[in-house]
């Protein structure tokens, strides 16, 4: 039992759930809850992105493009064409997954900086299309999005809901939804990582050639994880659109892609809980730095640089390493 609690699956998931359950009671107003929801949305996207970047070692500088596609397809299908939001979300995820599958083959043959260049280009092309086809997307002025609804039951952040005799605001219901999804997403990610598929992905990162000679079809796995991470992004793009009720092409933009990859690297590549920490920090940092006013940009750049220089492995792995170091010493002494 103790052993099980130490594993990232059971132990990590229960810790995460604890934090997520306690958190709303420590938040004093709707703004803080809103920020928590945004952290959650970003966290789920980067948990997916981390499978691609952290575990399989394939850089994507265009993931916001997939998120934007999901958001806009959901918004347009449910708003302009009257689809049910859930159906629109699923359809968008299938389309984004399909695109990632088609483009993944040729793109993922590229390595290192060429891959980042190609994914960057892909993201920018998607953003340009969204920005330009304003008859459909509303262009840079943005698009109003219908609230999420299921079987005629609409979930708007602005309404009151009664669940099991408890009265909840729409934002609180959204929090519960996103928090549950986060736990679910982490569970899925851990399942993938700790499976033959996950080992194959990590082997692609560790030594692609070694994986190939033992029969791992690395191209296939790279495409697979590219599709999975794109679908994560698409679904969260859709949900984020329904939650905020308004989207602009920024969601698909280059800067957003950079923000996502920064969350992964800052929090700790190949660490599922690390990238969640990355999402927490990158969403909260602008809020904290907002008080610095004209120094905000300077401080943000500096924090980013200093963290990455001194913790190149990312925050969480570095912290855990520090905590583990004394312990390791004792074990080696025991062994000796």
């Amino acid at each position, binding site marked *: 039992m103790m052993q099980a609690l130490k594993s990232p699956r059971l*132990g990590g998931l229960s810790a*995460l759930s604890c934090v997520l359950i306690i958190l709303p009671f420590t*938040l004093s107003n709707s*703004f803080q809850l809103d920020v928590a929801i945004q952290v959650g949305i970003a966290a789920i996207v980067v948990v997916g992105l981390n499978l691609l970047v952290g575990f399989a070692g394939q850089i994507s500088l265009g993931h916001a493009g997939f998120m934007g596609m999901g958001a806009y397809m959901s918004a347009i299908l449910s708003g302009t064409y009257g689809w049910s939001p859930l159906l629109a979300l699923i359809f968008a995820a299938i389309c984004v997954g399909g695109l990632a599958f088609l483009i993944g083959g040729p793109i993922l043959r590229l390595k290192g900086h060429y891959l980042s260049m190609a994914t960057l280009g892909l993201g920018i092309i998607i953003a340009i299309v969204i920005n330009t086809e304003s008859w459909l997307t509303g262009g840079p002025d943005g698009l109003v999005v219908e609230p999420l609804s299921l079987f005629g039951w609409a979930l708007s952040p*602005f309404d009151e809901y009664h669940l099991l005799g408890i009265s909840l605001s729409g934002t609180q219901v959204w929090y519960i939804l996103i928090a549950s999804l986060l736990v679910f997403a982490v569970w899925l990610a851990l399942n993938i990582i700790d499976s033959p598929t996950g080992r194959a992905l990590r082997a692609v990162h560790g030594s692609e050639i070694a994986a190939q000679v033992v029969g791992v079809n690395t191209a296939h796995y790279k495409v697979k994880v590219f599709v999975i991470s794109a679908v994560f992004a698409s679904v969260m793009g859709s949900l984020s659109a329904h939650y905020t009720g*308004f989207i602009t092409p920024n969601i698909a933009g280059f800067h957003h892609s950079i923000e996502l990859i920064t969350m992964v690297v800052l929090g700790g590549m190949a660490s599922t809980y690390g990238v969640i920490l990355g999402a*927490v920090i990158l969403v909260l940092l602008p809020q904290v730095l907002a008080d610095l006013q004209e120094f905000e940009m300077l401080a943000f750049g500096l924090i980013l640089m200093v963290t990455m220089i001194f913790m190149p492995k990312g925050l969480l792995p570095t912290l855990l390493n520090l905590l583990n170091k004394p312990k390791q010493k004792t074990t080696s002494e025991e062994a000796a």
Partner: protein
Amino acid sequence: MKTTKYTLALTLTLAATGVSLTPVQAAETLRIGAFVSATGPASFLGDPELKTLELYIKEINAQGGVLGQQVELVHYDDGGSAGKARTYVNRLIGADKVDMIIGGSTTGTTMAAVPLVEQAQVPFISMAGAIVITDPVKKWVFKTPQTDRMAATKVLQDMKARGMTKIGLISGTGGFGRSGHKHTLEVAKEMGIEIVADETYGPQDTDMTAQLTKIKSTPGVQAVFNFGFGQGPAIVTKNYAQLAIDLPLYQSHGVASDKYIELAGDAAEGVRLPASPLLVADTLPETDPQKPVVTAYKAKFEAAYNMPVSTFGAYAYDALMLAVDALERAGSTDKAKVRDALEQTQNYVGVTGVYNLSAQDHMGLDVSSFRLLEVSQGTWKLVE
């Protein structure tokens, strides 16, 4: 072991941020919230807006504040991102508990805020152009600039008066240009003007000769209209001169600042555009009711910041002054009363124009508030 470590790390982070995000509530001050695009692609708008707000709040406080209270400006920079704007509006409402919100340098950031202020029932004055902001009328949402449609109308009217019916259009692909593009097409159709060439340029583009060459070689073009802001229109103007295009060039109110003439230099000579009287403050007739307001704002801003005024800063000035006026007439900070007072604003003389608001019109300006200006000998001249 690991469990506790994760929990510890996460809780610590959250606790740390929770502390810093809890606002310090000052007692007995009137809080005006603002969110502008002070950096990013729309900083051309947001920067002078923020400067204006800061300048005048200081002055208001020096003169004793509003309703006997000091005014506190709580402001955030959304960097032109609608997502960030939405979060900051949430913060202004939920955490900072402001009495009133001024903001939204762009249509995108404004529209992201609209559902929140409507829900929270906070009076909100936007500084962005698009019609959708106040049409249909939203109970708590007001705006100070004329619409892009009015700018397009003003320009096309002048073209028509000069007998031009076939024109070339070039516009930026940012929010401002796209919206202007859309409305120019609509107004042109209504007025029977044909757009024979239609080109665009990106907000960071550095050369528009290709687009202009295409317009130049389109047969029948009688004039060119550029809808955009930032450095783009100045580059268009310089390229226009370089290509020696011998047709009248019109710009939108997006470049209504001395900065434009400074950037475009001699190439700006003869360019026409619709703008508030701000740019011709000195030469306005003494009878013009706006003259004192306009000259005072220009003098104060330029003295404080040592940079030329722009129409955009004036939107913030008008928004702030309309807010103060409404607060004083409402006699309290009660949000519903302030909103009603705002809606009843009549004959309020601002820098942008004379505002007459109503339940059907939350902007309160008409096309005539735009003056048509022409660049002549390196300065603005009223075209009458």
